[in-house]
């Protein structure tokens, strides 16, 4: 008997997806670090500065790659598995494991990047970043399911409004985090919200979704 290969398939998807991001990363990095040297002269090249910029772009791109991949899991890859009659439980198990792997890797990368800066309460940041990534991934799965179930136009509109609200609130939340205020409440909110989306995705929305195309 062959073992279950859903995770192997997901890994293949991720590697394909990663290549396009890596190419974008190299192009952006090239334009922001090497191209200016043509104007200022190559003697101006500072390896340390290059290292910081490269790490910064790499972190941002990896983070966006994980988020985009998380969104794709709930939308495109869920469909692909459904076409091959993979059971909803198996698909969700694969997506959940992927979310955990993305969260741990994303959090590790960002926290390693933060080691370059002097930050108090690193442990707290580690928890916050880990929880926030996990929340974002589950939230994106949730949005993907809503889009598939109720139509993308409606969902995109709602999502834009929600994004506007988040951008509006992020200053306050960022401020609170910087000042170390309401940390317990924020961590509790992230945990409860992630658990809520996890429950809704796994036990309600994924059980209702049908592949009608």
């Amino acid at each position: 008997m062959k073992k279950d290969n859903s995770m192997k398939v997901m890994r293949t998807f991720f590697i394909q997806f990663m290549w396009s991001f890596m190419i974008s990363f190299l192009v952006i990095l090239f334009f922001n670090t090497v191209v200016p040297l043509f104007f200022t002269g190559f003697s101006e090249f500072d390896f340390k500065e290059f290292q910081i910029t490269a790490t910064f772009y790499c972190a941002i791109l990896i983070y966006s790659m994980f988020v985009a991949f998380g969104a794709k899991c709930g939308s495109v890859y869920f469909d692909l598995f459904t076409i091959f009659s993979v059971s909803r439980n198996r698909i969700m198990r694969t997506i959940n494991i992927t979310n955990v792997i993305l969260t741990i890797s994303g959090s590790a990368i960002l926290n390693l990047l933060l080691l370059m800066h002097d930050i108090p309460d690193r442990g707290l940041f580690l928890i916050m970043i880990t929880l926030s990534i996990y929340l974002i991934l589950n939230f994106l799965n949730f949005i993907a399911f809503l889009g598939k179930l109720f139509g993308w136009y409606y969902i995109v509109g709602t999502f834009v409004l929600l994004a506007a609200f988040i951008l509006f609130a992020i200053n306050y939340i960022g401020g609170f985090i910087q000042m170390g205020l309401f940390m317990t409440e924020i961590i509790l909110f992230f945990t409860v919200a992630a658990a809520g989306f996890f429950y809704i995705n796994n036990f309600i929305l994924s059980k209702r979704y049908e592949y009608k195309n």
Partner: protein
Amino acid sequence: MNPTKLSVKNITYYYDKFKALNNMSFNLEENQIMGLIGRNGSGKTTLLKVIAHQLLQSNGEIIIDQKNFIQSIDNHKQICLARETLGKTFEMTEVMKLKMIFDLAANLYEYWDRDYAQYLIKRFKLGTNKKYNKISKGMKTTVGIIIGLASRAPITLFDEPYVGLDPVSREIFYAELQKDYSQNPRTFIISSHLINELEGMFERVLIIDEGEIIIDSPIDALKDRYYLLQGRKASIESYRSHFKVMNTEIIGSLASYSIEGPLNEQIMRQMKTDEIDISMISLQKLLYYLTNGGENNEER
């Protein structure tokens, strides 16, 4: 390969308020080829998609090997639904090459036969470096056929596996299906409109109309139930009490009656003595009469 039995129990499915499948039930023994026949919109594709767990029934159960499909996490290993298209997801994905699709299938189907898939790719002359959204309709159907055959899934479902196919490719498909079935017996359900081409392969037939089963029977049993009588009208009319008439065609004193029996041996001998020719009604004609397609439908 595990022996598999499929039970469809009281399946009802709604598209919004439209009832596409109405309390449908049937059993399928292992290693049979079943023809799923019906008019456009009768519910064939819906039924196959429900069995393949792509659509979720409003009521009822799909049982494979005594296990409920939804409750069993690994039942997907038993089923492969091959359609004329893999759907929008594949159509819209720019980078999806045929090679990637076959690799995906190889990873997800438990009994996938790589060598056989390669053989079929060559047999159908399919270039695996082509992108799925750029190939013709017939080639998309071929992709479905290759996935269906090479999956070696104990329950393989083909939904109209001839759409866009040229006659040569159709013949290759029929030949490969028969060859593979004889070498690797398993359960096939084939939905089709080209009944005359596939009729000889079916061991069992399920005729559906408006989401309900009209006939669920082994093909041999149909031969003992539905007949075409041809002879003098008066002679045939004299046996009128022994059968139900589905359709009549009269040319002068000669008539052709499509009837529902059964007819016993004695009556059949008498009919032959009265120069009435008795033959089997083709499945296509049967579908035509049973779904109210016949203009002279007398008793239905």
